[in-house]
């Protein structure tokens, strides 16, 4: 199996005035292509911080981060943006769709920022929305969609540029059990189609969908084992 993510001794410290928060204190992880990883841990344990590093949204203070065979630590903002665009799809807890913008246009967004590849944005966005079961809601605004539907739009947006990696930070945090199960089914389908998925959650039932479980505490990984079904 090809290595997709390799974190080595990742340290991230936040400084707020005199208070120093060690959000990540030397994290080592290797994630291969095609894995489905759940990350759990108490609030403030550094899960989101690690996801942001993996997602190229934030740079660590020290350590090494190889994504798809390339060192990310030390890259400039422009290269980071291009990595986010082509290698990573994000799904956040709070849906993070552009307000007053249709589902279709929200899904088109990553393609607009894709450099050097011309394609039919409309058709690709429609195909992605159909894949998540929202073929009938193309022209709905986010505030005309339910939470579960909004999260599906976010997933469609995450996959439209066909990135190898999907990152989801508490994607079901704001959804009820039934809708959560539907959204998780989408992740399983994506994983079955070869996407690597890293997903943060507080709920053991959600983590149970994954194949591998990483637990964090105080900025460190305290356990990393396969999920027994």
């Amino acid at each position, binding site marked *: 199996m090809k290595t997709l993510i390799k974190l080595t001794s990742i340290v991230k410290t936040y400084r707020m005035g005199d208070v120093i928060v060690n959000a990540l204190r030397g994290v080592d992880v290797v994630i291969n292509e095609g894995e489905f990883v759940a990350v759990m841990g108490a609030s403030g344990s550094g899960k989101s911080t690690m996801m942001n590093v993996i997602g190229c949204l934030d740079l660590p203070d020290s350590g090494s981060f190889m994504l798809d065979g390339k060192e990310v630590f030390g890259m400039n903002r422009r290269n980071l*943006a*291009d990595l986010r665009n082509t290698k990573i799809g994000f799904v956040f807890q709070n849906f993070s*769709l552009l307000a007053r913008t249709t589902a279709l246009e929200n899904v088109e967004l990553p393609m607009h*920022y894709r450099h050097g590849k011309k394609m039919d944005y409309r058709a690709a966005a429609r195909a992605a929305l159909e894949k998540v079961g929202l073929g009938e809601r193309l022209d709905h605004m986010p505030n005309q969609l339910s939470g579960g539907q909004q999260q599906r739009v976010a997933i469609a947006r995450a996959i439209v540029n066909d990135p190898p990696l999907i990152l989801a930070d508490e994607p079901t945090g704001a959804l009820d059990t039934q809708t959560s199960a539907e959204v998780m089914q989408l992740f399983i389908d994506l994983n079955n189609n070869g996407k690597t998925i890293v997903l943060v959650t507080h709920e053991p039932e959600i983590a149970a969908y994954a194949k591998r479980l990483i637990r964090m505490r105080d900025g460190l990984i305290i356990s990393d084992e396969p999920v027994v079904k």
Partner: protein
Amino acid sequence: MRTSGLIKTACKSILRNRVRSFLTMLGIIIGVASVIVMVAIGEGAQLQIRQQIEAMGTNVLTVRAGSMSARGGVRTNVARRILTLQDIERLRVLPGIVAISPVSRASGRIVGGIGNWQTTAMGVTDDFLVIRDWELDDGVMFTDQDIRSAGKVAVIGKTVADELFPNIDPIGASVRIGTMPVRIIGLLRERGQNMGDDQDDIVLLPVTTVMQRMSGTRFIDQIMISTETMDIIPDVQGAVLATLVASHRGTNEDSFNVRSQSEIMERATETSRTMTALLAAIAGVSLVVGGIGIMNIMLVSVTERTREIGIRMAVGARERDILMQFLIESIVLSVMGGVIGVALSVVLIYVMNDVAGIAAVFEPATVLMSLAFSGFVGVFFGFYPARKAARLNPIQALRFE
């Protein structure tokens, strides 16, 4: 993101806040409209001045005693009492001169017909009509004989005729100018306004009549000369000056002021050009103020849309993409304001010309310039907010509440 997409995004966000966008644009609208209108008024004024001076004849020289002051006026000092009718005879023989007439002014009340009228009597010779290219509607001009004898005859303008002899033929009528009885022998053709003066409010008398019977002086105010062509004006100017200096003891070239009509025209248009530039500059300041308004709103908009910026960055927008998005939004805002401002100025210029009767000349060049300038304002004042947006940290932007 491609430019077409950026413009679409910008228009959407502008339309989302219609009232706010309009109020923001208002500064540019007013700025652009006032620049164009100011320039139009200035151009109109210049055109009028030029036309009016041309109407007075382009190959005309005016001679006065006294030097020209730095401000362009004539210094009326003691040197003024120099020119006499003898100078007319001396100058008349110079080559290139077609017609020459003295001018001697005296103000007085003209009484007759149905009432009286305050006017300025101009003492001239018959050449005056040649120089001013003026014709009579009726009657005759006074003759050399009238000049020699200081005849009590007058040629009047249309305004004077209308005031004193409405619907009455004034030719042959007797009037009084001051205490002097005068017979009207001619009626000048209507000329209209010139630089705010009513040209038809005029009474022409033989120059000798004015000098001897009204002001009691042997000096004349000025000499008017018309030359054969415009090209020889500089030569004639020099010859006139040399003759005058030679024939008046104790004078030099600065004692006389020999001006051509084109010099007067240049001076007048230059003044009005300066005024136009000044007005346009003041109007330009309002454009800059409009630009500051745009900057202000763009800064607010960047703050309001911090989360949107974060989302765009998360899905792969480069710094440049965000910069261009906000820059184009501010350019679209200001250029839209510019276009509306141009439309407004067209309406205003139309209203001024056709309704208010103010001469205003629409200059297509100023339209292009103001549009270009408003685009520049958009770039200049949009750049700082746009850069602020582009430099945001993606995580902080996403977390922004």
